[in-house]
């Protein structure tokens, strides 16, 4: 059984935010207006952590893309009272919107604040309505959503592979953020496959995971020479 994981090379990442835009378009993530955004209700599945270091005029800026980490030991699934979020056999932490009751326990439990809540009925400009990705359902007001590692793409890839009677090759299944990254800083693949790029990167001396001491075992690895 494969175990899907991501590696983000921070030494390559320029912090351009292309992954965020690609994710929003791929997954029909709602666009909130300025007023809602001021209330901290911006909807992003792929967030960008921005850290400022030093004092003016010698400020150093760190930009770190942050999707859902699809932890191997996810704290969010333990608190969900309706099993709307769970970890499947392939290690993907799923969010089933039609089952979600919007209690937001999972958002409180997630140490990485990877989940977002639909505070409003998503509204789309007319120009947008024809541009929706039909493979991803539109969420309604009152449910929690998060990065799915583009699980809808996995279904298509699996179907293609099984129709041709072959295994999924390394790099065939790749989420929108990894596909769009102009710096090629995001890698995606199977951790169980010892030949995969992600497996090799995850064992690199540069690799680390976010808040490792919590024991959540994220499946998103960061690579950086700097601390």
């Amino acid at each position, binding site marked *: 059984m494969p175990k899907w994981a991501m590696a983000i090379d921070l030494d390559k990442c320029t912090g351009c935010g292309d992954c965020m835009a690609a994710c929003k378009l791929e997954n029909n993530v709602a666009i909130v207006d300025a007023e809602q955004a001021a209330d901290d209700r911006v909807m992003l599945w792929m967030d960008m952590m921005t850290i400022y270091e030093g004092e003016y005029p010698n400020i150093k800026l760190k930009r770190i893309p942050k999707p859902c980490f699809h932890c191997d030991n996810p704290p969010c699934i333990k608190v969900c009272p309706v099993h709307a979020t*769970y970890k*499947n*056999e392939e290690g*993907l932490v*799923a969010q*089933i*919107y*039609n*089952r979600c009751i919007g209690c937001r326990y999972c958002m409180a439990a997630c140490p990485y604040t990877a989940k977002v809540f639909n505070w409003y009925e998503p509204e789309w400009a007319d120009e947008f309505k024809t541009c929706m990705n039909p*493979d*991803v*359902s*539109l969420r309604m007001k009152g449910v929690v959503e998060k990065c*799915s590692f583009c*699980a*809808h793409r*996995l*279904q298509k890839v699996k*179907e293609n592979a*099984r*129709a041709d009677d072959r295994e999924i090759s390394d790099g065939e299944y790749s989420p929108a953020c990894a596909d769009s990254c102009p710096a090629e800083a995001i890698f995606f693949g199977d951790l169980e496959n010892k030949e995969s790029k992600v497996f090799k990167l995850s064992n690199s001396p540069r690799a680390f995971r976010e808040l490792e001491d919590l024991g959540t075992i994220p499946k998103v690895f960061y690579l950086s020479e700097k601390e």
Partner: protein
Amino acid sequence: MNVIDLRKTIKKNSKRILIALSAVIVLAMVWEIFGAPNAIIQPINYNHKLHIEKAKLTCVDCHLFVETMAAATIPNIEVCSDCHSGEPLSKSPEEVKLLKYIESGKRIPWKKIYSVPAHVYFSHRRHVTIGEIKCIQCHGNVQELTEPASHPLWLATMKNCIKCHKENKVTYDCLACHH
């Protein structure tokens, strides 16, 4: 009968009225659930049997993408016009209707009878090509139909899906169908 009398009779018979009202509601619900749903009438009275037996067509010949894509597709004028163009092939008034659509270039407004909600990913390829399920299993004995089906033979409810997935020991992971 004045208003006070009416109130009294209502008070006296309140139990009976309540029972009668609930009976009406229950009957309405039973009718809604078990009663005959509205038959779907198609713009052309298409004869599957004739096309399969006389024209020797198979399902894939018209439902072009049943083996290769998620949606099997309902054939429209561009598919029909491969055989039907110019002179009618039969004396059927239904074919005249079709030829009118083809001539005017208007699409036939077929009504879908099998559908899944937007939050469900259903793929014909996954079921037909990979799962090797016969069309007949969900759509019934279409080759015997002389007119279009007016009701879905099999309802695509999650209960029905899971039942079959369990019987055939295939995945029923939520993410396999919902995203």
